[in-house]
């Protein structure tokens, strides 16, 4: 029988690894990720989880040990955040390029300097180009569900790429919410034993990751791109199956809230999209038809779905909790490239480094963006900073006067 338990987001992820029958976990402590591995260690100590922990000396080694374990044929997991993720960046490429499925949780946090342990999306969005699948949870239940799903998806022979489950630092990682835990038997049915393209075995001379002719290197990257396209299909299929098993459907890569009759969409990732939904309701009370498109997946990018949802709207407002400094928010760039600039677009970097953003804030800057669109006919503003209740001048210059 499934049971409802109150737990922090980090614990939800830890429990998901237990249900997934992960056998080896390698990790290094970094705030706000630490609870994940502490909880796993506790589950192992109590005999509730049959796994081994490799207590490595750094995040670079954490992913290397996870990779080594997965290459040896067992289900392996790690978790990190911020500087830790930056430190393991090289290994991200190595794991994906080897087509070795592993799952990692990234508890999103700002990257210094100056030191800041609070939520920001710089870290997780830095992984976009590495060949990992990247997803982002809105709440603790979803952090649990996505972790289980991620094992199933990454170990699908049509995919064979590693995957990241993102959850917002502190907002989810340290906040207690009710989470429904399934039966182990049902999970075992949903998630079969690990599959992977090759396993290191003594007596079988094969080389993983050795030198290749340049043409093969390029072909491998082409293959990985194909696998990402396959992953779209697999995510939808497996997400629907998840719904049948556990009652929560994940066949949509984008979680839409009041999108269909909306003139304006607020788009983004992570937990603050819950606030965006409240803001949308408020703006509707004021007469603006607003909906919310929350991207559950960043890689593969839900390109087709986004177009279906957003094309023909009057405007899309993208909330970015990070910035590709010198251009615009990474999500703004991703979303605007998918939409050929047809709707008006406004990018709003906000909440960076954990600056608190409430639904009132979202309603405020979204309304401002809508007014700009209505006054100017069509606008394209990559950066409209929102900081402590004020809207700030922008770069690159959009030609639109903001105040």
């Amino acid at each position, binding site marked *: 029988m499934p049971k409802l338990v109150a737990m922090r987001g980090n614990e939800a992820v830890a429990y998901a690894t237990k249900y997934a029958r992960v*056998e*080896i976990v*390698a990790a290094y402590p970094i705030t706000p990720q630490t609870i994940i591995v502490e909880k796993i260690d506790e589950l192992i100590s109590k005999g509730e989880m049959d796994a*081994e922990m*490799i*207590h*490595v*000396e*750094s995040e*670079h*080694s*954490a992913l*290397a*040990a*996870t*990779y*080594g*374990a*997965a*290459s*040896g*044929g*067992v289900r*392996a997991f790690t978790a990190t955040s911020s500087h830790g993720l930056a430190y393991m960046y*090289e*290994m991200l490429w*190595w794991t994906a390029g080897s087509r070795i499925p592993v799952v990692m949780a990234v508890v999103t946090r700002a990257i210094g300097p100056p030191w800041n342990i609070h939520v920001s999306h710089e870290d997780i969005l830095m992984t976009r180009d590495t060949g990992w699948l990247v997803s982002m949870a809105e709440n603790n239940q979803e952090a649990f569900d996505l972790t289980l799903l991620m094992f199933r998806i990454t170990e699908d022979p049509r995919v064979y790429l590693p995957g990241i489950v993102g959850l917002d630092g502190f907002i989810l990682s340290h906040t207690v919410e009710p989470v429904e835990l399934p039966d182990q038997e049902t999970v075992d049915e949903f998630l079969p034993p690990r599959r992977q393209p090759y396993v*290191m*075995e*003594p*007596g*079988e*001379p*094969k*080389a*993983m*990751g*050795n*030198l*290749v*002719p340049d043409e*093969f290197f390029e072909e491998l990257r082409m293959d990985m791109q194909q696998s990402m396209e396959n992953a779209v299909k697999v995510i939808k299929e497996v997400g629907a199956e998840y719904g049948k098993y556990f009652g929560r459907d994940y066949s949509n890569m984008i979680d839409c809230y009041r999108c269909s009759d909306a003139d304006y969409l607020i788009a983004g990732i992570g937990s603050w999209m819950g606030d965006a939904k409240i803001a949308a309701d408020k703006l509707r009370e004021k007469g603006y038809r607003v909906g919310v498109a929350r991207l559950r997946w960043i890689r593969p990018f839900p390109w087709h779905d986004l177009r279906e949802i957003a094309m023909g709207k009057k405007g899309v407002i993208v909330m970015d909790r990070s910035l590709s400094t010198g251009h615009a928010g990474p999500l703004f760039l991703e979303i605007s490239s998918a939409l050929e600039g047809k709707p008006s677009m406004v990018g709003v970097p906000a909440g960076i480094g954990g600056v608190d953003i409430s639904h009132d804030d979202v309603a405020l800057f979204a309304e401002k963006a809508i007014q700009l669109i209505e006054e100017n006919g069509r606008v394209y503003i990559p950066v409209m900073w929102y900081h402590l209740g004020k809207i700030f001048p922008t770069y690159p210059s959009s030609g639109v006067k903001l105040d």
Partner: protein
Amino acid sequence: MAINIKQLPKKKYVMPGNAACPGCPESMGFKYLGMALGDKAVVVIPAGCSSVIQGLWPKQGFGLPILNIVFAASASAASGLARALKRRGVDAQVVVWAGDGGTADIGFQALSAAAERGEDIIYICVDNEAYMNTGIQRSGLTPYGAWTTTTHTGKRQFKKPMPQIVAAHRVPYVATASVGYPWDFIAKLKKAASIRGFKYIHLHAPCPVGWRFDPSLTAKIAQLAVETGAWILYEYENGRLRLNPPSNRLIDPSKRKPIEEYLKLQGRFRHLKPEDIKMIQKEIETNWEEIIRTLKVQGDL
């Protein structure tokens, strides 16, 4: 441990047509590794000459399974791999085959941590005393006075005492070896494989390309390093030091060949001034003094 050549596997573990330079000490060493451990070995190789020697996909120049890995990560990847194989009940010996840079410099942190955790792996440092694969740059294991492409007038620092550093982690087995003494190396590999926990073997590997000598001389130069006392063969078993032949006869300095015999064959020492040779001599003395001190403390001398 007595080794009978008839009992060693006949199988080839280094294939003809691999990408090694002529006279390469690493392919010699790898051959001995195969002879010692046979099909049980699963090898982790970070960036370095041996990542190239394997040759281009889809060919494979080594007759053992190889997990290639980024420079800093070999001991960690090997830890994960060894644990996974053990969990699956597979009878294997995971071996790291890393160069001097990958061991003493960039990979040192992961090596130290794996030693501290007591991972059940054999870590081999194939020490050709510089970053040969990228074009002969100095490493923490380049000896005093040696020319490299980043020490044009000769390195001014001494070699890191890696075997002692690893032994200080109190791991069950640390040994030095040389490609000039295959039986000694094979015996040490076999012994290491019979011990559970973290094992470290430091294999001296003279490189004709980086050291500037004729490729036919690799084994001879390796032997000269030992005969002059510049490279000492020994092992620490559970912290107890023992000299191995022929080094055990060389405690007496008069039994050692003059260091010049070793240096003069190598282009990398061509520029040496007499005071440089004195410094090299001094480094050798220091190393021997340390060994003698330890043997005395143990009551073996």
